């Protein structure tokens, strides 16, 4: 079994290396990711970039200048879906501690970098990109400042060449105003929610850290190098995004004020279950929301039964920039369900194109990579895929072909192999 897997992955990597030719996709319905849709689309790929986006009725393009032509008639074309705030590649089997690399010990760890722990050979990754997810922001967990994330392409020999944008942002788990403790040594029993008595202390420390970082990075000479404070430089100068993880409304308000106080140029709330209550505040301060996993129960019994499902719609209506993510139980393996989160958002208020945007261009904007990816537009990376049906619906999501920067990627995975193996065993068709 192991042998087969090995051979396959070598093969897939080789093939993706070789496939850097020019491609023309014709026919098909293209969901551009920017809220628009083209029927009978024609999309040209050259040198890893999209060099043509038009329709079959137009004739201003030269079929012959492409080495390969793909007929996508009756099919759907999407920009590669982007999974923000993901632990993909940082874990293999959640319950096996040895396979987990997403959490470092300590509280304030801005200089922990996920990129170097990202395992391009994780068995989970091929099962995720099979559903159309081609980019991911690999994010640390734990502590108050968990560390620095990076954006990767879900195909690559090693983390170096998988990196799309290294060290894109720093992640803060906003101190809880109310908290809950584990009561036993086995970490199985949760106590009741209580007011977090540590909140003021934690906030003082967080603010001091940012004050220190500001002073440190502005100082002309540095007496001693401080790796933590260096890591925060990008947040203060606007080259990195500050991702603040919180769901509670009071914490969101505090977080926004923090961003204002430290004049942080790029910030987003991750989670934001209560964000619909403070849309005006978020909009005024240009703070986006990486919306908590939609497939969740409402927080309170009296909340609207479909409360979580319609959160994107509420943010859309209010004009807040948002995108979708899948943090939570079994998050890494479940990243492959990101398209269906968007599908649910479409069932509960968004238009289908807005829902596509919520996992493509919106995400790219929030992650600061929208200049080169996130939509099917001339000049952007040719990171896109073809599905035989609506990719937001599990009933029809069926990815036939996918390109990352123009390279056609392997859509096989171990699970498909096991399926075929046992189909053969039983002699099934």
């Amino acid at each position, binding site marked *: 079994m192991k042998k087969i897997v090995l051979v396959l992955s070598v093969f897939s990597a080789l093939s993706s290396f070789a496939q850097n030719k020019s491609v023309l996709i014709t026919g098909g319905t293209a969901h551009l990711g920017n809220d628009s849709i083209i029927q009978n689309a024609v999309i040209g790929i050259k040198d890893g970039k999209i060099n043509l986006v038009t329709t079959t009725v137009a004739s201003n393009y030269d079929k012959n200048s492409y080495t390969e032509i793909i007929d996508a008639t009756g099919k759907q074309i999407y920009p590669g879906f982007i999974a923000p705030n993901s632990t993909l590649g940082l874990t293999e*089997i959640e319950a096996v501690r040895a396979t987990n690399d997403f959490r470092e010990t300590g509280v304030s760890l801005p200089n922990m970098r996920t990129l170097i722990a990202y395992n391009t050979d994780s068995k989970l990754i091929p099962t995720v990109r099979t559903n159309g997810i081609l980019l991911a922001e690999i994010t640390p967990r734990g502590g108050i400042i968990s560390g620095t994330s990076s954006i990767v392409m879900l195909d690559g020999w090693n983390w170096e060449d998988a990196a799309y944008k290294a060290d894109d942002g720093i992640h803060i788990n906003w101190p809880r105003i109310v908290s809950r403790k584990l009561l036993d040594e*086995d970490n199985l029993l949760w106590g009741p*929610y209580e*007011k977090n008595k540590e909140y003021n202390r934690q906030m003082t420390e967080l603010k001091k850290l940012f004050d220190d970082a500001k002073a440190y990075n502005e100082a002309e000479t540095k007496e001693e190098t401080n790796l933590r404070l260096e890591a925060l430089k990008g947040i203060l100068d606007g080259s990195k995004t500050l991702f603040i993880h919180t769901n509670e409304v009071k914490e969101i308000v505090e977080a926004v004020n923090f961003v204002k106080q430290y004049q942080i140029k790029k910030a987003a709330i991750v989670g934001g279950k209560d964000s619909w209550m403070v849309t005006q505040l978020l909009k005024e301060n240009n703070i986006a929301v990486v919306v908590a996993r939609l497939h969740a*129960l409402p927080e309170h*019994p009296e909340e609207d*039964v479909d409360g979580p499902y319609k959160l994107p719609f509420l943010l859309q209506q209010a004009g807040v920039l948002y995108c979708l993510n899948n943090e939570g139980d079994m998050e890494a393996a479940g990243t492959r369900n990101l398209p269906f989160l968007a599908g649910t958002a479409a069932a509960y208020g968004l238009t289908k194109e807005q829902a596509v945007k919520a996992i493509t261009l919106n995400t790219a904007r929030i992650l600061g990579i929208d200049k080169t990816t996130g939509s099917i537009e001339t000049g952007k990376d040719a990171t896109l895929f073809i599905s035989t049906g609506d990719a937001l619906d599990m*009933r029809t999501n069926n990815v036939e072909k996918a390109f990352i920067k123009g390279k056609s990627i392997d859509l096989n995975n171990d699970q498909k192999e*096991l*399926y075929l193996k046992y189909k053969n065993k039983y002699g099934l068709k």
Partner: protein
Amino acid sequence: MPFPFKILFLTASKRGVNTIDMKKIITLMFAVAVAMAARAQETFPVNGTTNKLHTVYAFANATIVVNADETLKEATLLIKDGIITEAGTHVKLPKGCVVYDLKGKTIYPGLIDAYTTYGVADAKPLPRTTAGPQMESNVKGAYGWNQAIRADADAYKLFMINGAAADEMRKLGFGAVLTFQKDGIVRGSGAVVALADAKENSLIIADRAAAMFSFDKGTSTQDYPSSLTGAIALLRQTYLDANWYKNDKTKKEYNISLDAFNSLQALPQIFETTDKFNALRADKIGDEFKVRYIIKGCGNEYQRLDELKATNCKFIIPLNFPSAFDVEDAYDAANVSMAELKHWEMAPVNAFALEKNYIPFAITTADLKDKKEFWKNLRKAIQYGLSEQQALKSLTTIPAEMLNVADKLGSIKSGMIANFIITSGNLFDEKTIIYENWVEGIPYKINDYNLIDLRGTYDFTYGSKTNLQLKIEGEIEKLKGTAVIDTVKTNVNITVSGNSVSISFTPKDANGTIRLSGNITTGTSKMTGKGQLPSGEWTDWSATLKTAFTNVVKKDSTKKQPEFGKVVYPFSAYGQPHPDDEGFFKDKIKEFKTRYDAVLIKHVTVWTNEAEGILKNQDVYITEGRIVRIADDINAPKMAYAKVIDGTGKHLTPGIIDEHSHIAISSGVNEGTQASSAEVRMGDVINSEDINIYRQLSGGVTTSQLLHGSANPIGGQSAIIKLRWGKAPEEMKFDKADGSIKFALGENVKQSNWGDFNTVRFPQSRMGVEQVYYDYFTRAKEYDAKQKAFATSSEKEKTAGSPFRRDLEMEAIAEILNKKRFITCHSYVQSEINMLMHVGDSLGFQVNTFTHILEGYKVADKMKERGIGASSFSDWWAYKMEVKDAIPYNASLLNQMGVVTAINSDDAEMGRRLNQEAAKAIKYGGMSEEDALKLVTLNPAKLLHLDKKVGSIKVGKDADVVLWSDNPLSVYAKVEKTIIDGIIYFDNEEDVKMRTDMQKERARIIQKMLDEKKGGAPVVKPVPKKQKLYKCDDLEKDYMQE
């Protein structure tokens, strides 16, 4: 008139600030002396000369409330030796008795609290001997196996007088209480004791007055039980074991606990509950073992009156009304649940609700944070409708009868214990003062009724000032005076103590305070004395009554019954009141307004799951809970409450059935403390108020199998429920469903992921798991044979020697062997699946369903061969080692192999998207849409043996159907109606309306809370509460802490 005739009984005054200690000492000395007289301790040697008293005390001219039904005016009470000798209107005073004139005063029987721990110290937990699981009892000696069975605890042996606590209770008017040690599931016996300050020997009125029970294992450090369902099983098995023990003639086993348990049976049985549903659970146990418990309630009984009335149990209810929440901050207020808001408003109505429904109940001070709240809350309950007569009964005769001491306590009749209170009037009136509380003939002065009433208007003279007017008002005990001195109205402080009076005031033109002291001349309405002016000069003063005080009784307009909302069913968000709008006191549960006599859905696409497949543009007619007709065009029924739904463009499917769910379970899903917990039943702990029931309905789920967790190889018995939102737990159960039981394999049962300490409980490897099954099934087989032999043996054989011992655990496993109970087994990897199939082959049982079964595709042929079904996740994997090879093609492969395959949730969130999970089988493995829908409808119905009733849309089947806005397998499909038994339990239009109604109702109550806060009432800061959601491997230690 003030200045009544008086007898000074106790010399110490209540007002004497500096003499408090002295007063206590005097009271105590006196009390002890009288106690000796009242209930003498013959066997005790005397130090000094004996002091035996047989004084007759007479209480004359009183209004005597004999009990709630009889009041005597101008009556006299005689007591002697702590016993009432006579009470009536024509009582002759014997010569040589102490007479108290109680004109204008009222005597009530001393109150009885049937639920206290007075004078009994809390149990101390035994030290734990291990950091890991504690499988056995830590109690040394010939006791039973479980630490939570404390049948041998007798309160009368543990009872020690507690002066401060007794004093507190006496001040409230109580004279006797039931007390017990509040620890464990079986808590031994409680005793009725008097609240006097005397030697314990004279205080115990009934030694073994009641047997005490609860569901809380208390200080027990033993792991079992770790859940409510385990606690119930433990109690049931204890009843069986005690009965066996009683009849066992061999007595090979001596068991103090069972012996004691048997000796408790003749007593009144009191069961403490912490929720209305726990009261129903207790009653169910009672029914099984022919015990009618007295239920110690928790204050929310009004939320389920009909079911509680049907128990025919008596209740003891607390008056622990919750404090208002601080809801000024709108964000904070969002954290207060609808149930909390409504309970805050309705808690004071509980007693009234019970009274209205003729449910007998006693009232207790138990559960009050501060006993001082008692009268305030009782009066509040009266304001909310409780009659004074009922209140009195609930504090006197009812508890006395409950505890079999009605011949001694609870009324004022000759021969009864002299427990009574003297009040200024109607006990329940806010202004009423309790003067004295006599306990076993020992008086305790609470307020001095001899205090002279100085109120009135006086001619007042001091120093050079004459003809001043002094007006004294206020309460007798707290006087307020004013005098006009040189045209200036001046406040005057007045303190009375006995016949002494002191007056002080500061006139405007004086340079300081004038202090006057003096004497009240009894009967003359005059005060005279001397005083000191600010200059230090002494002066005479006097005050002569001109006009006496007349008490102006204000008509209290606020006394009318306050408004409170309606009880909603369930008592939660998205609950609804009964349509007749009469709130809680209804005899019969009515159906919700969404109940129609008939439902007709027109022009709808019907996914039949039958040979007909998907039918377009059909009409489906539903009545009396069944699908009656499916045809092209059915005329609208002409019945009163018929609902016609236009199904154009919509889809109708059978209701979704979740084969693996842990919603709607109270207090623990796992009794994983032993390798087998076959004796526990999820059916005992159904929580019909879980909001997740409503949420599942919104996702089209109509039936769920509630499974025990997967912590042990042989788990507990499952319950299959229909999601009849608003009904009581028992009404949720799927009628006549086959019994089932949860088994589990792999990492959970061998405790692989439970941390470093859980290495004790067997098994720890897959090897051990197999042997658990061999062991239990072998024993169950032998047990079954023994039981069958015993059943057919003669009466003589049955009573000789050791009788057959019923074992609930073995019984459940034997049921599997007898094909009366069917296994759903949590499983992942092929080796263990194969193993259990082999164990079954060799021991003669068959697994019904492998659940999760993520490697089922590797052994599909073996499963098919044996006819075993599969209930799987769509695409979960990689969360632990044993799901490494899980593939989303599993369901599809199994289905292709002819295995009956379902997709389940094991998750309250996913449960409401099971249609989407089923649709993944189309994506992964290319299943047809019809087959995919069957994964969550017909196939689970087959696995649960319910496919004759549900799972397809067919004439004659249960009308459990779902109307969808779109193709039910599409991510864009939304549920519009979920219908169970022909009743619409989820309606998307109603849902939107309910949200608005709920916001209105919340706003109304929140406004009320804000008003209370303004009025100075204490408030509690709300904190978000998260509901416990159960998955297979959830464990709990404090299962009663929810």
